[in-house]
């Protein structure tokens, strides 16, 4: 059996269906199996990433029918990069939660199934070359996300999940409407095919479709004002799931948005200034709100939204440099925000309210976790020499090339706010005296390992950015090169 992109979807599905069966054999298998799957998928990532660098885009058709008749999966440098990233983080999150869920053994089966499906859904969104298929995978992602948000009974998860579901349903409605209109115009659902027939669509219709897509994907991509679900969901979901939200769900949304803008419509054809404007507004509002947060995970959630705003704005620049910057930020954000969520979770483990104020003096009790959190904060705020800096510089350069001085200044001012609130947390951890007896929980070994792996990767990117920049560059090329994508998928 040849290793091909379909493994990203088919194998986890197989495993997901298997889990109820193996759970009957031994409860532990329900926990181990997803991990093994994710480990295998990581291997697939490595294999395919090397392959795609040599041979170019891999387009695999499903069901024996070539595009546009059948559905196809496209493993391009872009989708490959994101899929590898998501799978990698998925594995680390699995590793992290392996012990985490020990207390509730019965539920661990569901937790890991949902986690696996969340990652599979995100991977599917990114890999698929078919717009309706993308919608289906978006729904898979969304439903797993709803369920995971409401996972803990003793929290307000259900409330958060309900809001998420409310807005998520709206997202799928808009997506479907857009797909419908598009199908009625061009009679096909394959993205490459649609893209090649896009000139048949009248410009008024195009804008409507674009707006519908923008809203639909904007909800998943946490664009303001569509991101009401995000803070609640991040806060109430189990800690590591926050990491997956930040690195998988949102990334899938942003990817979909970028695909629609760049491939479906073509950059010049769509009103993308909206992206810049909305991106900056998103970033500003989110970072401002984060500044006033009292809860740690909520603050991280807003920070995540802020970063996504930056990414959206970067995509909106539309140049290769902008896309490159956006992808670089996405990669960094996925890694660093995951680290922050993973380490932050342990710091508020026993706290009921999970307030930042309860972190006072936490560094004394959890030196390693606190240090990793502080490191993550420095990195995401873009302090050199850590990796966040490189991506930020590339974003600024891309913006400067487009002569958008206002954008640069806006972004940097907002970043200052970001710096402030992260340092507020660090200050509390390190320099405040605890007001009461601290209840804390030491991270288990596997959690530590996964955090250390993340840290090592971030450090690697920090000091040897060139090693990943090649991949990102290829990905950026892939996204910008619309004709190449169309021709390759349609075998022209």
């Amino acid at each position, binding site marked *: 059996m040849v290793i091909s992109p379909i493994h990203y979807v088919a194998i986890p599905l197989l495993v997901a269906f298997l889990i109820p069966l193996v759970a009957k054999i031994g409860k532990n298998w329900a926990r181990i199996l997803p991990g093994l799957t994710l480990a295998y998928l990581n291997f697939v990532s490595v294999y395919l990433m090397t392959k795609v660098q040599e041979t170019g885009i891999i387009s695999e058709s499903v069901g024996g029918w070539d595009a546009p008749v059948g559905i196809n999966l496209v493993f391009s440098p872009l989708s490959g990069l994101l899929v590898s990233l998501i799978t990698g983080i998925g594995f680390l999150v699995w590793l992290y939660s392996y012990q985490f869920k020990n207390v509730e053994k019965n539920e661990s089966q569901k937790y890991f199934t949902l986690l696996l499906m969340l990652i599979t859904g995100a991977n599917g969104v990114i890999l698929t070359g078919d717009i309706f298929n993308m919608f289906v995978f978006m729904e898979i992602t969304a439903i797993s996300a709803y369920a995971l948000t409401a996972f803990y009974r003793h929290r307000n998860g259900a409330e958060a999940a309900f809001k998420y579901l409310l807005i998520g349903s709206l997202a799928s409605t808009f997506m479907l409407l857009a797909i419908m209109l598009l199908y009625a115009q061009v009679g096909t659902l394959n993205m490459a095919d649609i893209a090649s027939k896009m000139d048949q669509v009248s410009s008024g219709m195009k804008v409507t479709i674009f707006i519908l897509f923008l809203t639909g994907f904007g909800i998943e991509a946490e664009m303001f004002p569509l991101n009401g679900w995000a803070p609640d969901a991040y806060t109430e979901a189990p800690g590591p799931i926050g990491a997956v939200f930040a690195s998988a769900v949102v990334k899938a949304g942003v990817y979909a948005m970028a695909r629609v803008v760049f491939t479906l419509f073509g950059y010049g054809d769509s009103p993308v200034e*909206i992206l810049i404007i909305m991106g900056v507004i998103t970033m500003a509002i989110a970072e401002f709100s984060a500044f006033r947060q009292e809860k740690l995970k909520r603050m991280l959630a807003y920070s995540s939204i802020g970063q996504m705003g930056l990414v959206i704005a970067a995509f909106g620049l539309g140049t290769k440099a902008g896309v490159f910057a956006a992808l670089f930020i996405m990669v960094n954000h996925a890694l660093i925000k995951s680290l922050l969520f993973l380490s932050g979770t342990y710091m508020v483990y026993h706290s009921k309210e999970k307030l930042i104020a309860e972190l006072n003096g936490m560094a004394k009790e959890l030196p390693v976790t606190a240090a990793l959190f502080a490191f993550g904060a420095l990195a995401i705020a873009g302090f050199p*020499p850590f990796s966040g*800096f490189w991506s930020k510089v590339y974003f600024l350069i891309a913006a400067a090339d487009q002569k958008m001085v206002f954008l640069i200044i806006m972004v*940097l001012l907002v970043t200052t706010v970001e710096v402030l609130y992260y340092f507020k947390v660090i200050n509390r951890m390190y320099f405040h005296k605890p007001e009461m007896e601290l209840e804390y929980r030491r991270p288990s070994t596997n959690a530590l390992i996964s955090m250390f792996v993340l840290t090592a990767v971030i450090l690697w990117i920090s000091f040897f950015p060139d090693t990943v920049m090649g991949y990102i560059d290829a990905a950026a090329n892939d996204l910008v090169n619309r004709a190449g994508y169309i021709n390759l998928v349609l075998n022209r």
Partner: protein
Amino acid sequence: MNSLVIMLLIYFAGAILVYAANKFSAVLRDVIVVLAGLLPVALFFSIPAFEAFQFRIAGFDLFWDLGSLAYIFEALVVVVGAASLVYAISYMKGKKNLGYFYMNFFLSLGSMTGILMSQDLISFFIFWEIMTWSSYFIVVFNGYKTNKIGLTYIFFSALGAYAMLTAIVMINTQTGSTMWNDFFIAFAGMSSHYQLLISILFIFGFGVKAAMMPLHIWAADAYSHSPMAYTATFSGVLSKMGVYGLALVMIKLALVSNHFVFSQVIAWLGAVTAALATIYALIQKDIRKLLAYSSVAQLGYIITGIAVGTAMSFMAGIYLAVLHGLFKAALFMVAGAVEKQAGTTDMHKLRALIRKMPLTFITAMVAIIALAGIPPLGGFVGKWMLYESLIGSNHYFLVIVIFFSSTAAFLYAYRFLYGIFLGQEEEEFAHVKEAPLMMLIPMLFFTVLLIVTGTFPGIILGPVANAMNHGMGFRGVQWEMSVLTNVYGDSIHLSVISTIVVVVFIVFALFLILKGRKGTRYVTTKDIANSGEPVRPEDNYHFALDFYKPFERAMAPLYRFKMSEIYGNISDGLVSFFQFTRRLYSGNGQTYVYYVLLFIVILLVFSNQLINR
């Protein structure tokens, strides 16, 4: 291997090693601190010329080389850094988290070295930011109370750094290169609003670190609240990185000649900084705070000197920068020694330590004389050159403002010495001993250095002139070992001056000491002529409260102007705005649905505009 890289490596490896060593043994840690502190000094002064080093990372060319101007500042970094580290060993004894402290200390030293050797903007910025956060981590070292101070510091630093980053990316766009040199060359060809924007951004960025007027409010608190061992470096050297940057930008971009008004504004900002910081310095009751404000004031002189931009004023600015590094380091060390030995730095509490800590007093006195710019010590040379150059280049009102602040500086200079060392003795401080040897060595080292530079400023002026002739674009800058000459051709001979002062002083000192020496005995300062009523043991007539009340009353309008209040209002406004944005997330799912619908409806309504783009 490249000696620049080795120096950098020593600092950064020192940072990691010292952190690791702290876990094992305190002695090992101290040994590493001293070694990694002194090794760069030896290396720096033993190597005649540094070769350049170049490599590529993340698509940027990084190019390291030590320019002639940077050489001066680098000397300051290694010397003051090493002295502070030696000092720190005694000073920090018995405190917690020393590994953390030394790590950040070395990181900031290393990053300063990096800044100075960076010939390209990217590595310049990287090192700049490392410097920022490593110094931030030391500012908050003392814990809880420093929280807000640290945040103010990091806020302004981040603003400044990002302003710089904006300028850097704009330069990259404009010139396609991130080298300082390419930028200097291409600058003249840019359109004038780009020129202005880039220079403003740069000056904003450097101005923060150099504590220039509206951006200075972090400085006093940050200087005074970090551990004194670090403040010696922080205020003495780290702030000079801003000066270094300003020097590069102001001079190399020819802002002085091409944007005259602009350079005037900066010069005036510097002067106003000096004046205001001085009058605030003299009402402080904490010696650390006094010194901190004094640092801001001194930086004001330096900025003015650089911004005026004539050969002599520039020389004065750089000279003052170096000298300020030396005497302010000495003064903060004195403050640290007092803090360590007497347990307080509050001048309302401190009393008459002169007999307990004579060597510390001598250091303090020499450094204060240098600070006040009184001949024959080094500070005078800088002040003299500054005045002469300002008058000589027709900045006559500027010189008045500078003169005002430097006269007012006598007030706090006196208060510093009096508040700590003089006045009536008090039982509470009877047990106080002289500072330990490890603290005295660096302090006395600076004392000697300050005395020497007073007579032979050429030691510093030589490299400065060299830098100005080779690299800064000045032509034919002259210097002599101990003669200063102004633009009118009048000169003063420092060796003569020193001789006269010293001879006269010694003659009369001998007279006063020796005349009737046998019959004179020491009595405590409680035994004073107080209208025939001796001071009782429980009384203390020490004068410390409202020391300069008359001055405050005279200058009341100036004291009413508080920059921190303006910033306070701005930040209050911002915080309530943040609170508003936060409340957009009302927690009601339906509201969010409204948002979504509103968003899409607005876009749809404007869809026609979107087509016609």
